[in-house]
């Protein structure tokens, strides 16, 4: 009875949230857990086949949604926390939302992205058969302390699972070191060639997780991702089961893997990893993935993942939460040869991480390359710090406008061909609202 009450309350709160225009809320799930603490255990145990958990610093939401799309296209019913509410409460919301009014779940699979620190808690309520780890970058430092702490949480979470298969990014030495220590059965994905996109940016985790020696790279892509080996103790990039080769980035993304050609029209090098991770996980379920091209073609990246608006000119909106993600966004911006303006919105709310020192690890200097950048606007709660960052990056012509709507309106007034709006997490929905409003006025 408590279960049904919990489901009803959750559904009512989700409905109320939708009416209030809120997205990705964890409030309904929190209420459900209060009413019936076993609700997630109960609902998740009804999933007929497997539960797949997607973890990792960047690319969780895209990977998880791609995986969900792939499995759904095979005729499966799938539970998915699509909007990225990925702590215990958000995961509970997703399951309760999928249940009928009697608390029954009709699902073959559940694809659940889980915040790394929440894995220990979440895995106390549901037991994934597969655990995907996309990558491990520095993220939200003040909440997690250090990346070692994140790895520690993941290890404790993995220890709770028996017989689970870890689906790991072979190119990330932090991920594979974690996998080696965790043991069990592994499936690896990675990029099998030098794609020539490496840039001189901050590299992390480039020291061996076993002996502390410096890793040697045959080639690397960005951050610590690449083909590495430790000359000291022999720790080496494992051979991927799903490897991208013949990578072509000239128009969107195309590559070969598992005997097929995959091509999509969205950009961002990191999407190779997202697609590979989702593909590797989907293949574990035994799906042959016929019609994959159609699934990928229909897939639209999440809100704020190079999402395009048209407000007199194209406005490209992107969320980045940490240096690795931001540097990837800056690569995409500087590869765009049109004349452009850029608005950078940085908040420091609790969910962003109160510490914004990472903006000094972002290569804003590169926005000055190529001469296409006209105007830069610093905005968001920490607009003052962004302005200082842009000043010391040697970028002339930056303006400091705290209010996001004013900042975007200012940038739209220039004759440049395209506007990029780069935001961090809590600026995502508020900035999207502003963009939608401005687009609606057109």
């Amino acid at each position, binding site marked *: 009875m408590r279960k049904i009450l919990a489901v009803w309350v959750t559904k009512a709160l989700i409905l109320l949230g939708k009416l209030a225009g809120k997205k990705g809320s964890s409030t309904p799930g929190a209420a459900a857990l209060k009413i019936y603490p076993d609700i997630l255990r109960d609902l998740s145990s009804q999933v007929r086949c497997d539960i797949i958990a997607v973890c990792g610093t960047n690319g969780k939401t895209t990977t998880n949604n791609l995986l969900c799309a792939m499995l759904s296209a095979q005729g499966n019913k799938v539970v998915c926390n699509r909007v990225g509410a990925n702590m215990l409460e958000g995961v509970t919301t997703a399951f309760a939302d999928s249940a009928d009014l009697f608390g029954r779940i009709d699902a073959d699979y559940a694809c659940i992205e889980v915040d790394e620190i929440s894995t220990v808690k979440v895995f106390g309520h549901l037991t994934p058969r597969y655990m995907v780890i996309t990558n491990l970058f520095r993220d939200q*430092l*003040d909440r997690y302390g*250090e990346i*070692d702490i994140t790895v520690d949480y993941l290890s404790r979470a993995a220890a709770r699972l028996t017989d689970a298969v870890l689906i790991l990014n072979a190119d990330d030495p932090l991920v594979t070191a974690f996998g080696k220590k965790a043991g069990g059965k592994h499936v690896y994905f990675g990029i099998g060639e030098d794609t020539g996109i490496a840039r001189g940016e901050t590299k992390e985790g*480039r020291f061996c997780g076993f002996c502390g020696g410096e890793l040697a790279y045959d080639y690397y892509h960005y951050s610590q991702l690449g083909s590495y080996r430790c000359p000291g103790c022999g720790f080496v990039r494992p051979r991927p089961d799903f490897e991208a080769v013949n990578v072509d980035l000239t128009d969107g993304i195309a590559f070969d893997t598992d005997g097929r050609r995959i091509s999509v029209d969205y950009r961002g090098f990191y999407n190779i990893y997202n697609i590979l991770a989702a593909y590797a996980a989907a293949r574990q379920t035994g799906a042959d993935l016929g019609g994959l091209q159609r699934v990928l073609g229909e897939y639209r990246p999440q809100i704020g993942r190079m999402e395009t608006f048209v407000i007199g000119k194209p406005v490209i909106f992107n969320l980045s939460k940490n240096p690795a993600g931001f540097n990837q966004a800056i690569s995409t911006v500087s590869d765009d040869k049109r004349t452009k303006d850029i608005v950078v919105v940085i908040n420091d709310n609790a969910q962003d991480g109160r*510490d*914004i*020192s990472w903006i000094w690890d972002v290569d804003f200097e590169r926005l000055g390359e190529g001469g296409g950048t006209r105007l830069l606007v610093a905005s968001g709660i920490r607009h003052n710090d962004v302005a200082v960052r842009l000043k010391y990056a040697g970028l002339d012509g930056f303006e400091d406008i705290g209010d996001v709507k004013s900042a975007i309106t200012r940038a739209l007034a220039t004759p440049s061909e395209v506007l990029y709006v780069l935001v961090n997490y809590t600026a995502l929905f508020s900035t999207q609202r502003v963009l939608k409003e401005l687009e609606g006025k057109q």
Partner: protein
Amino acid sequence: MSGTPMRLTIGHLYPELLNLYGDRGNITALSRRAAWRGIDVTAIEYRLSDEIDFSALDIVFVGGGSDREQLLVCKRLGEIKARFQEYADGGGVVAAICGGYQLLGRYYKLKNETVEGLSVLDVFTESGEGRLIGDVVIQTDFLEQPVVGFENHGGRTYIGSHAPLGKVVSGGGNNGTDGAEGVRYKNIIATYLHGPLFPKNPHLCDYVLTKALEKKYGAVTLSPLNDDAEFAANRFIVNRFA
């Protein structure tokens, strides 16, 4: 007739391991603020295997790393300890932040092991319960405006008879109990404040540049710069606690 421009060489110790909180921003601030005054700046990044010629350096910068990374650095520090001490005792300018600050002390006692420090400062650090995390404002006795930053450290540092860099106005500081933050000793600035430190504290950055130039060229006065953007960011943190 203008003379040869003044020159400064900054040695950045082990940024591959010690660059946890955007420390590179401190090198950028030092370099830019010197260059804006027509001072030639060279910044050298040292890797663990590199030999360091301290006599060629005017500023030594040591940033922060995770406990694991500090352990890796600690082995190497033992080998350069004597030369580092000689540099610092001779009035060489040092800026050390977070993990770098801890490494300047005698030791950092972790739960299971002890990291041997450079003993340049007579301070020690012990791991405490929980971490001190958040914005910090301190008041120094040599700069008019407050110094601001962000701290995130599990270690608690005790500075004995050393003078602190400043008194804690808001935040945790060295150990969260005695109201002291950092150390200022000879030409050494050591602190838990990152954020990074120098871009938001141009007055402190200029203090370090001045000390380095004075040691090399005698008394100097840095020409003023427009620091409106920097102090706006500084005031934002101060006002948070107001």
